[in-house]
């Protein structure tokens, strides 16, 4: 085998040093998927800070059982309504799209996405839509939670609710357009020699995500259309006084929003597969099962929506949804155990990316097991709409999706900027975030079981001790985010030069310079036969060739990309 190494047609035949993405690129219209990916990422991070600030206000208010920080209940209600909406629709989902945009074409050896113009268009819907939603503060913000159940959301909330709905409409359309783009790119633009089952798992994850988006998001569009009509045109779809039905919204909304939780977590699953395998230098365990379980999750995910309505639905109708909800544990379990199989016996590097990936595994499993408990109707009757649910959703969304996205940031930052993130700061970030995350959200389960409803600013005084603990931990968690932001800001200008392939990874995005040239590859690149084929002489030889051809991780390579200010840094 080794003899064929020299002739491996890897990456591009030649390459040129890529151009750094500048601020001007980011602020302008660009159809380059790499620029768009970074635009998505930065926009999402900005909204993360906004959503996080709202969370800090929530926690501040909840330090005491009385209403003190906020003027009244409505003001508090708008805090978590916007916190939930911003985090989900303007942070998690766009951040998944950010990685999808940047990484998928590179992993496929493609020059760009299938529809570059559409891609840019989909992105540029997001900042105005998000801005428009936040403008709601000036006319009275939405107050009905991110789930916005009518009649509260149709008859008792100010005009900001309409703006909320319009904004979500735009965000939904944007994500549908993005998803179409991903599916077409993945289906049609794989290179010669990359069958479906040679595709990196991140692409599988984005494919599964996109299929869910394409099938489910239209239901959000339908529901929002009716909500807007009820609010502005006097129809009565959700108003029983006019012959409407309050459960109609809940059914359509959850028919979208349960699959949507997998839209939020599948990209993180994809990232985890890449990071765990690469940073423990071992092939992914059970590739086919991981790929197919994404699809299984996507399919079964469409049949569970009413587990959010266990306390509203006719009792007999609840049972099928309990069964399907619990079944989801099986494909997810396959993934979790396959990841454990991947790291078992590997050569694990404690890079920041790896730490966050491991943090993801450990926290997501807690959230998932909570989910299965919630799926059990009798128990859900007790904890529905309590802090137990708040805990579950943050374990899967923050401990799951967000830790996964953080891992992705540490993993792909060198590719995007050509520079490494500071590892010491990365570890500090993890050391702060992991325990404070657990201490923020785990006590919520206890508070929930003890009797703390969610969405309240005033609560029973005997629950104060738990809330104080939660709030203090959450402030530490908030501060830990600044470590990441600071790290990004300093590393963009003065991080260590990364070279093409700092992690010695086999997937194709690493077989070109960092950052990649405008067309990613020159000529038609050929992928290494197995994106996770670590541990063989052949793959080692391939990686050595890449290093020779595109430059190693060392100071000096590609100096022209920016002034290398040497900053005291860890490794």
């Amino acid at each position, binding site marked *: 085998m080794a003899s064929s190494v020299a002739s491996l047609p890897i990456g591009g035949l030649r390459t040129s040093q890529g151009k750094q993405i500048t601020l001007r690129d980011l602020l302008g219209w660009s159809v380059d998927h790499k620029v768009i990916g970074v635009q998505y990422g930065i926009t999402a991070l900005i909204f993360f800070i906004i959503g996080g600030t709202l969370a800090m206000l929530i926690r501040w208010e909840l330090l005491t059982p009385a209403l003190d920080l906020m003027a009244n209940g409505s003001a508090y209600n708008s805090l978590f309504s916007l916190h939930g909406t911003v985090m989900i629709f303007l942070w998690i989902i766009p951040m998944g799209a950010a990685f999808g945009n940047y990484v998928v074409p590179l992993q496929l050896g493609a020059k760009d996405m299938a529809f570059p113009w559409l891609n840019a268009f989909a992105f540029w819907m997001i900042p105005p839509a998000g801005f428009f939603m936040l403008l709601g503060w000036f006319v009275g913000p939405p107050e009905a939670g991110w789930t916005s159940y009518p009649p509260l959301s149709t008859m008792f909330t100010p005009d900001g609710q309409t703006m909320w709905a319009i904004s979500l409409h735009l965000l939904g359309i944007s994500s549908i357009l993005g998803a179409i783009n991903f599916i077409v790119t993945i289906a049609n633009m794989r290179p010669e020699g990359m069958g479906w089952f040679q595709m990196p798992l991140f692409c599988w994850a984005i494919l599964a995500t996109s299929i869910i988006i394409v099938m489910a998001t239209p239901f959000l569009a339908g529901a929002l*259309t009716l909500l807007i009509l009820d609010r502005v045109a006097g129809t009565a779809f959700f108003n029983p006084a006019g012959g409407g039905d309050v459960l*109609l919204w809940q059914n359509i909304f959850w028919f979208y929003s349960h699959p949507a939780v997998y839209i939020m977590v599948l990209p993180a699953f994809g990232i985890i597969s890449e990071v765990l395998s690469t940073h423990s230098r071992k092939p992914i365990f059970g590739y086919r099962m991981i790929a197919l379980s994404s699809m299984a999750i996507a399919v079964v995910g469409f049949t569970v929506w009413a587990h959010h309505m266990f306390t509203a639905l006719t009792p007999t109708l609840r049972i099928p949804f309990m069964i399907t909800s619990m079944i989801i544990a099986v494909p997810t379990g396959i993934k979790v155990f396959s990841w454990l199989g991947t790291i078992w016996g590997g050569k694990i590097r404690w890079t920041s990316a790896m730490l966050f990936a491991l943090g993801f595994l450990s926290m997501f499993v807690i959230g998932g097991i909570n989910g299965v408990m919630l799926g059990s109707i009798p128990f859900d009757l007790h904890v529905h709409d309590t802090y137990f649910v708040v805990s579950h959703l943050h374990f899967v969304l923050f401990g799951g999706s967000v830790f996964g996205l953080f891992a992705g940031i540490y993993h792909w930052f060198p590719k995007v900027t050509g520079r490494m993130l500071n590892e010491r700061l990365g570890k500090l970030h993890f050391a702060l975030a992991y325990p404070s995350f657990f201490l923020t959200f785990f006590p919520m389960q206890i508070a929930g079981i003890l009797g703390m409803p969610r969405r309240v600013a005033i609560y029973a005084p005997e629950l104060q001790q738990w809330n104080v603990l939660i709030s203090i931990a959450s402030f530490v968690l908030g501060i830990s985010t600044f470590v990441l932001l600071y790290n990004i800001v300093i590393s963009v200008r003065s991080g260590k030069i990364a070279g093409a392939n700092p992690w010695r990874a086999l997937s194709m995005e690493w077989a070109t310079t960092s950052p990649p040239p405008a067309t990613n590859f020159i000529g038609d690149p050929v992928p290494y036969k197995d994106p996770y084929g670590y541990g063989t002489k052949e793959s080692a030889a391939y990686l050595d060739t890449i290093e020779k051809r595109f430059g190693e991780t060392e100071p000096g390579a590609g100096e022209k990309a920016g002034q290398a200010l040497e900053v005291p840094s860890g490794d």
Partner: protein
Amino acid sequence: MQQDVMEPQLSRQELLTLKNRRTGMAIFQISWIMVFVCLILVNLQVRNNFTSWPPEGVAKLGLGLPTLATLMLLASGFFVYRALKAVQADQAFSPSWRMALALGAGFILIMAWEWLNAPVTADVNQQYGVVFRVMTAFHAIHALVIGLYMFRVDRFRAYYNARNSWAVEAGAKLWYFVIAAWIMFYTVLYWI
């Protein structure tokens, strides 16, 4: 479809672009038809809250004109298909295309009339008329926008030929979409 006759003339890049566009269009159609499915489910759930449909005292919508409109729409589908074949064979597609446009316009006019005359009452029973209006209006907006796009294609008809026919194909496929969505709506609104 029989595009292979012409397509060898296209470069590899052009072929990929065309393939992408076709896949993209198909996925878009699958996706957006879901909004219509959603409205159908809404219709079914709304009527589920009434003992009879239409509710007591509300007149059932007449079948005559809408059926005529539906037939016109189906016919327009046929002409769109003819136009697409024509342009792919490097022949003039405009006559069939315009015929389709005219039939489409007829459809929209009839449905506008139906919309304006839908049974509207003030009380709980308004749901019958309201669901009808929301569904048909939602459909009509799509028909209108796509119709306008097709109109524009016709104005630039000189640019399109067998090598450059995507704009026509897209218009045609979007129009098929309008037809498919309408058949579903027609069945639900008038027959069940």
